[in-house]
């Protein structure tokens, strides 16, 4: 029984069957990659997991509880954090404030009228955000506007923001898309370090095979809205069906 259990999920957009009969089991503390060619339904599947879309059929269970019908913020409070393809951060706010917001969300929940005590008086949250900034190696950038940072730094900040919530499952949607090689390698190293040091499960959607094979210890291949095969990386590499569907293009 995995921490995330997807059973018979189907989703149709008009005449397009985007997902059909998707079964997926993500084991606790694993790094599970979901790969597949363009249009395979990877992003649709991810959106079904975080509450942006509701599947037409099937069930999605996280830690024994259904996530279906819950709003994105509720699913997040259950312990699922999401990293977006283009970093979604608070561009107008400083790096420190970006880190403070998830720390307050973790402590106070979805809404708290915390309007009289100033931030500087709430030392517990300040210390936690500070520690996370140091861990993400961006303490020197704390007063910078988040929008002014490089793509790689924004990605690192976004991952740090997600981690500061101490999620049990971290979902990443093509985290290295559009990055330079050096930034990609930094991100791989960061994710490796996270999965080794923390008690966390990572599910990653990725196009870049280099990233997938450097990180994943379990891979699901999606093709035309349905899982083709789920196996260990070594077996995926040699699987002829996978080669035909996907790897054939690049490998």
């Amino acid at each position: 029984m995995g921490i995330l259990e997807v059973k018979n999920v189907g989703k149709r957009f008009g005449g397009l069957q985007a997902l059909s009969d998707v079964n997926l089991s993500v084991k606790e503390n694993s790094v599970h990659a979901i790969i597949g060619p363009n249009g395979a339904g990877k992003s649709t599947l991810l959106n079904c997991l975080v509450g942006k879309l509701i599947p037409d059929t099937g069930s999605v269970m996280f830690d024994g509880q259904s996530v279906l019908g819950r709003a994105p913020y509720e699913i997040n409070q259950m312990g699922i954090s999401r990293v977006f393809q283009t970093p979604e951060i608070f561009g107008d706010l400083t790096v420190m404030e970006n880190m403070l917001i998830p720390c307050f969300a973790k402590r106070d929940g979805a809404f708290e009228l915390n309007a009289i005590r100033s931030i500087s008086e709430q030392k517990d949250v300040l210390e936690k955000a500070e520690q996370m900034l140091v861990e993400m190696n961006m303490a020197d950038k704390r007063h910078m506007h988040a929008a002014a940072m490089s793509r790689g730094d924004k990605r690192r900040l976004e991952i740090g923001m997600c981690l500061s919530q101490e999620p049990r499952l971290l979902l990443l949607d093509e985290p290295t898309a559009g990055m330079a090689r050096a930034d990609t390698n930094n991100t791989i190293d960061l994710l490796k370090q996270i999965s080794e040091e923390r008690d966390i499960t990572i599910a990653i959607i990725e196009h870049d095979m280099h990233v997938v094979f450097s990180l994943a210890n379990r891979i699901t291949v999606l093709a035309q809205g349905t899982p083709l095969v789920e196996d260990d990386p070594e077996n995926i590499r040699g699987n002829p069906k996978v080669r035909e569907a996907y790897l054939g293009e690049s490998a």
Partner: protein
Amino acid sequence: MFNLEKSDLTLLIAVAVLTLFAPFILNPFPADSAMAQFNAGYPDLMQRFVIFGIFAIGFNILFGLTGYLSFGHAAFLGVGSYAAVWMFKLLSMNVIPAIILSVIVAGLFSLLIGFISLRRSGIYFSILTLAFAQMMFALAYSVLTPITGGETGLQLALDDPRIFGQSQTPEGNIPVPGLFGLEMRDSFDLAIGSWVFTFNIGYYFCALVLIASFYLAIRIFRSPFGMMLRAVKSNQQRMNYTGLNTRPYTLAAFVISGMYAGLAGGLMASMDPLAGAERMQWTASGEVVLMTILGGAGTLIGPVLGAGFIKYFENIFSKINATILHEWFAFLPDGLEDFIVAILYPFIGKGWHLTLGILFMMVVIFLPGGLVEGGQRIAAWIKGRKAGKTTAGGKTEPAE
């Protein structure tokens, strides 16, 4: 002190000093000089400065922090005024219960309107608030005449059934609003040389409320709640995926700013116990938007400056007429004098809106951060000149 950062404390003290010494600051010209018409230190106008300052501070909590542009906030000011006048009619002439009821009633109305309007964002939100405000204006103007007094407005009468206090004074007059015996309209004049300074009880009451409102706004700006409101403006998607429900945050901001508007409305009625529907019209809602943007949306002091600026123009600039212009330019040859007066005439008197419009355009185009940004640029320029002198052409600071 007051649990504030040093810069915020400085700002609060500056506001306190400016408001408390306003009768001096706004009356720089001797009463008998030609410049006396630029004096703004009379009670009626000073009261308007601080009341609209409070209105704009509250509006800025919604618009400046969350970016939700409401075009209907005058409606909350209007219901606040009506609530206060009804309190004078039914309960007592003390301003405290009147103002408390104004804030509560405005809060309830903003809860309802905000709950519905905040289902949409951007232009649709603005239109919804505008529609609600116009509905309330129309209701107050005609349908609800028994409650609002309709076209003539709601006024005190000699036969009001006041529970605490009398319906009429022994002299047969309508009693005036007061605070435990202090009458709001009471003033005392201080003449120094040819200057006359007027100290009005109503003004000082409003000024104290403004300082308290400003202090509360600072606390909100510096709190986690204030940061969340700025996060709403910056990226709602990220908020939703960070476990935060944006709806109650925006609704709370809407209700708080509605209550500030109600407070302003209650104060307005306390200074002059009548309320009319025209206070709720969309032009009044637009005015507070102008004040906030002109002063600097999202800054603490900006809305207060913007409110003062616009009210000064409205009351002082509009009083300059052709005769005064002719007096100013009397030293010029006749033909030239007439020519200059003819050019300036459209911008003064009833044409003050034209001047204000041009100024507003210039601020939006050249100083998007409003008057506050203008002040910051001047401060930076002075600092730069000083630094240049001391280091005598030393190397420039690297940009951060």
